[in-house]
């Protein structure tokens, strides 16, 4: 459909001759989505011809204020809405100072560095996994989160009722715990931000907290949920748990009566749970196809996104653009959607062709990695924001349900029902970390732009 901004033709008889009386019955500009069905007998060909030829007037006269501004406005409004899918709306990141007094800027987290628009050499993304480890008895359930790579560079994976720890630096494996049969299989694991404490969610609705260094259980959180705890997310001393009962509970792990807050926003299992980098917002995705964004303090959700048509387990907050959330839908939906959580607007929606099980943003480049199921079971690396596919990594023979990123941001671990855990050097090799440092191109006023 025409975008409304037709740059090649200047033919717009109405616009070019504002002093002429408008005989044409209705606004037949290209922006009008209704079809114009010509009625030959009613048309005045002579006049139409005159209008058309006269309209090709070189002197593109300044268009004065219209006699019918509302029509013009309607056209513009329509064009704007039509354009929404073809147009990207950008705002400059570093806003100028407000008049009179200094206004604290939210964007002050990132300093401005002037990067020249040079083409960076494309890095080589290995098509095969760097390593494949055995993961027998891993539960093949879409709604669980059985893999997490902690900041101490230890990867925790739950296979059946046992939690194993794999030390990435030396490759050693140790068993942390095997829970009793009545507690059921482990349904979720998540490292705390310190990388030493591990939260283990169980099928019987309890959550155990383990000290991985001492290999001992610190605490058990009971009584919060009524059914299995499928998703976990840490925010300092708060452990947020999402259950099959649809409840999301903030647990303060230091306090005896640990239930601090309960968010009720989902009617079915909460399978995706992620705190934003700042710890201010919590995104939750459920089997009820909803995505909710919660604020730390409020009871009702800040935003409720209903656009997905399948369970949303894949959630990822963008590290380089605050407020940007990426969500991925399951088997019926297969799309990745981007949201501006400040305004609640959906910025983009991309059909991936396959259920999206997990999403990870690159910490180094503007890239997004998604893991998929039927039929390819691939990991797809997208360039953001163009959403061009940079690489497709194949290897798994079953849907890639679990994915986690290494603390240095270079490697991604993925696990699937095919009982393998694969490591991919998709985001680069550790040496690249130095190259990714920004190069400041000296430009006038560039020193002014650093906001402290």
């Amino acid at each position: 459909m025409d975008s409304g901004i037709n740059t090649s033709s200047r033919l717009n008889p109405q616009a070019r001759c504002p002093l002429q009386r408008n005989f044409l019955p209705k606004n037949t500009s290209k922006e009008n989505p209704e079809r114009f069905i010509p009625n030959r007998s009613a048309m005045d060909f002579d006049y139409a011809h005159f209008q058309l030829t006269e309209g090709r007037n070189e002197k593109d006269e300044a268009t004065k204020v219209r006699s019918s501004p509302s029509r013009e406005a309607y056209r513009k409004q329509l064009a704007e809405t039509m354009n929404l899918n073809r147009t990207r709306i950008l705002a400059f990141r570093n806003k100028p100072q407000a008049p009179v007094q200094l206004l604290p800027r939210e964007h002050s987290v990132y300093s401005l560095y002037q990067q020249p628009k040079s083409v960076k050499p494309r890095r080589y993304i290995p098509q095969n996994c760097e390593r494949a480890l055995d993961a027998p008895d891993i539960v093949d359930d879409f709604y669980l989160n059985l893999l997490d790579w902690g900041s101490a560079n230890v990867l925790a994976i739950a296979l059946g009722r046992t939690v194993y720890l794999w030390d990435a630096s030396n490759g050693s494996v140790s068993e942390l715990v095997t829970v009793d049969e009545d507690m059921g299989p482990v349904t979720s694991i998540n490292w705390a931000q310190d990388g030493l404490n591990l939260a283990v969610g169980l099928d019987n609705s309890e959550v155990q907290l383990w000290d991985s260094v001492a290999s001992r259980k610190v605490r058990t959180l009971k009584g919060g949920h009524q059914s299995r705890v499928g998703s976990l997310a840490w925010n300092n001393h708060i452990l947020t748990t999402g259950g099959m009962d649809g409840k999301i509970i903030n647990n303060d792990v230091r306090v005896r009566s640990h239930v601090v807050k309960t968010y009720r926003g989902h009617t079915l299992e909460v399978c995706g749970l992620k705190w934003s980098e700042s710890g201010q917002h919590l995104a939750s995705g459920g089997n009820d196809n909803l995505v909710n964004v919660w604020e730390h303090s409020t009871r009702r959700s800040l935003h409720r996104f209903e656009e997905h048509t399948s369970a949303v387990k894949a959630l990822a907050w963008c590290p380089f653009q605050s407020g940007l959330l990426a969500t991925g839908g399951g088997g019926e939906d297969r799309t990745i959607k981007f949201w501006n959580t400040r305004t609640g607007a959906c910025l983009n929606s991309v059909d991936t062709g396959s259920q999206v099980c997990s999403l990870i943003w690159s910490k180094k480049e503007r890239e997004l990695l998604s893991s998929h199921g039927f039929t390819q079971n691939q990991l797809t690396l997208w360039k953001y924001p163009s959403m061009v596919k940079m690489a497709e990594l194949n290897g798994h023979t079953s849907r890639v349900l679990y994915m986690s990123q290494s603390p240095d941001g270079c490697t991604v671990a993925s696990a699937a029902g095919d009982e393998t855990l694969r490591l991919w050097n998709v985001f680069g090799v550790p040496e690249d970390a130095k190259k990714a440092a920004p190069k400041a191109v000296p430009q006038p006023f560039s020193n002014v732009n650093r906001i402290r």
Partner: protein
Amino acid sequence: MASKTVAAKDIITLHGSAAIVSEFFCYAANSILYNRAVYPEESFVKVKKYGLPMLLIEDESVKSFMSNLTSQISEWLEAGKLQRVVLVIMSKATGEVLERWNFRIETDNEVVDKGVSREKSDKEIMREIQAIMRQVASSVTYLPCLDETCVFDVLAYTDTDVAVPFTWIESDPKLIANPQMVKLHGFDTKIHKVDTLVSYKNDEWDEEE
């Protein structure tokens, strides 16, 4: 072909046209900021441009913001990817959008693709821009008073395939609900055609139609 009053015609290249448009935008934005009293009068300095006394803001952060903006706009114009630029004036306290100055840009794609140049008299373009600047200055007569402290922001509408530099972020359009719109003059460099439109929030005092 309608004859022009000026005899000489100058050759305009894509680069030149982009420079004209981005420069125009810089001066227009400054003029809007002055006329709408977004920044106090004292912070502006007079310069001569387009045959008129134009005002430019002295404030460093705004100046650098503008210069970054104009260089980026110029780049996008040369690539033919820019569709419009919108200057948004918002209330500082509530963040509500009060005014939107919409500069719609139509690019002659043939020039972008093939690199040909066009002819138009420089004076003619300057006259057209002058007309717009005068209109902006006189707009204060019908635009509602901005009593509260305001801040401004600039949005760029680009094609989806444009590479977003690190310094720009995605934004929503910051539209005004039920706006009043006034179309101003536009100008044309034969390569880029710029239309100006201001939409503003309905003044509650304005009861009579």
